């Protein structure tokens, strides 16, 4: 499905994003937030600064900064092993919750969820 995420959904590369895409992303983020067990979602820009978040400011900044560095490191590791490879997703499972990071070219989407027991 990653492929048809690539073929149909990732749509190759659209030149100009339009409002319907933005609405789609907003919708998706709202749905993710409404899912069972999701504690918060953060959208981080290319410099590690959270631009949209459902958590409080200090927590967001902390998560954003730390996960940004970690994602850079992870991406570097993946590409070092095989430069044709790419980091698509990063999940960190801890005792209390799971942190999921979806990196984009310049952005990061972070979701923190309490996985179902």
């Amino acid at each position, binding site marked *: *499905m990653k*492929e*048809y*995420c690539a*073929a*149909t*959904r*990732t*749509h190759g590369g659209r030149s100009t*994003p*339009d*409002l*319907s*895409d*933005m609405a*789609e*992303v*907003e919708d*998706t*983020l709202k*749905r*993710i937030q409404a*899912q*069972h*067990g*999701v504690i918060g*979602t953060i*959208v981080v820009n290319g410099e590690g600064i959270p631009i*949209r978040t459902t958590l409080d400011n200090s927590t967001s900044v902390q998560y954003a900064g730390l996960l940004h560095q970690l994602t850079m490191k992870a991406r*570097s590791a993946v*590409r*070092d092993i095989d*430069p*044709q490879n790419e980091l*698509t*997703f990063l*999940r960190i499972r801890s005792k209390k919750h*799971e942190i*999921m990071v*979806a*990196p*984009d*070219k*310049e*952005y*990061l*989407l972070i*979701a923190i*969820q309490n*996985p*179902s027991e």
Partner: protein
Amino acid sequence: MSNLSEKTVVLRRARLNAATSSLMRFSFKECCFKPVADEPDIEIEGSLVHKDSEEGQILCAEKEVGRKSKTLFSCITTATQTTINPPREVACQTESQPLLVNYSATANQWEIYDFYQEELQKRTSSTKKDEKENEIAEGAEGVHGNLSLLRDFTDKSDHDLAMLSTAAKLLEYAVNENINGDIIADFKHFEDEADEFRGDKGTLLPLWEFQYNKVKSLPVSALCWNKKYNDLFAVGLGSHKFTELECGMLLFYTWRNNNHPEFLFNTDSGVMCVDIHEQKSHLVAVGLFNGNVCVYNLMAKGDQPIYNSMASSGKHSGTVWQVKWWEDDLYGNHTFFSVSADGRVVSWTLGKYELFSTNIIKLPPMDKVPDDLNNVIVTAGLTLDFHKQKPYHFLVGTEAGKIHKGSTHYTRFIKTYEAHFRMVSCVRWNPFNPKVFITCGMDWRVNIWDETTDSPVFTFDLKSSVMDVAWAPYSSTVFAAVTADGKVHVFDLSINRFEALCQQRVVSTKRHLTCIEFNPVHPIIIVGNDRGLVISLKLSPNLRKNPKEEKGKEPSTGAEVEIAKMEKLLILMR
């Protein structure tokens, strides 16, 4: 006599008069020879005197006499002095160092790779540009360069969020995976071990449930798996009862996200049938309750179909009950067939801008209809299926309970089978054996036919109207049927020829089940009910068994084996 204490200073000059007058020196300043007049020569006083000169003669005379010369000098001082150059200082100084800037970078394998890729792209794009006129290319580049900068500045805020759609989707899948973790584990790994103790019987394990909140009242009318992406399936929602809502929806779900459909299309009339093209799995043909057929392109944006038969002249006047994609025609245009309540089988071709329809065949009238009303009262065709190996052969099931076998080469039906007493709800060819097909009808029966005989080879009575039946893609003898009382019946003819291996109620008693489909790859079926709910179920191992081979032989799989299995059964029943 001179006084010896007297000092006489005699100056002798050596002078070459003749020479000095003609002494020329090259002047670098004027680039020519110039007479040197005033140059001071070296003058050295000498003590030699020419013997013919006055003084010389006097000296010779004195010498002869032998007297001491008056001109005896006691000491001679000669001195010369050269010109002294003034001292000059010559020093060298380099330019001062430029400002030191700290530069650091990493040289990873991927950075090197990326750089090479960029270079490659630049070179290929520059060769392409060379083909164009240079001026235009440069001008355009300049404009684009500026524009892109401008865009960077202004669009930082909102629009870049739109490019996050992939990342957002992945995140949603991951979140759902966490929530449905146990379902996914069941799907992947759970094999019911109790099957060993159940004899031949099997069970169905419910997995995901798909319900879109806004369509609680529309029944599921069609299901179709996507052959290319095995987790994606289409759900058509629409009602064929006049009393209910006159609208429909086409949804696409993947089990990675059972909360929200991947694609959603609203139609102005109930969706009665859906088919996804086998190779071009972004093309979806839909038949509607009001007689229209549409083709959607999943890769195109927007809610509208790319083709709609509303404007075509050959469109159906009754509900379209089944659409099926066919092979491309001679020119490579995609074609699909539709069968409808107006008694016609029509083939539609996707032209450049619109659909072209061709009447293939008209269904023969029912027996009860008097001859003069043949053209008025039509026989509704309810279901259509193409032969797997011979794509020009097809079967049509009608509301009169008959199955007609037709071919696209002929205008009349080749054969007719009296299949059911009431409406035929589904007809399907066996995926392996080319002679076998299955039908089910509202008369509670499921019949399996050999196309050469006139009566069914197998008949099963399921105690309730059978709404849909499907062959399993992994075995030629396994099929499943859904009935109006909410049960799913799974049969395996090679194991038990008379009864079902599994008869399980999947939904509550008040609800009907309307459709069933097997996943092409995984041992999963999806069933739809009349309230818009789609449930996926996993087949337990007993339902997927291959019959026991003789001891010592390896279990064999493959199409030939499947065909042979079915053949054995047919021979048995004759």
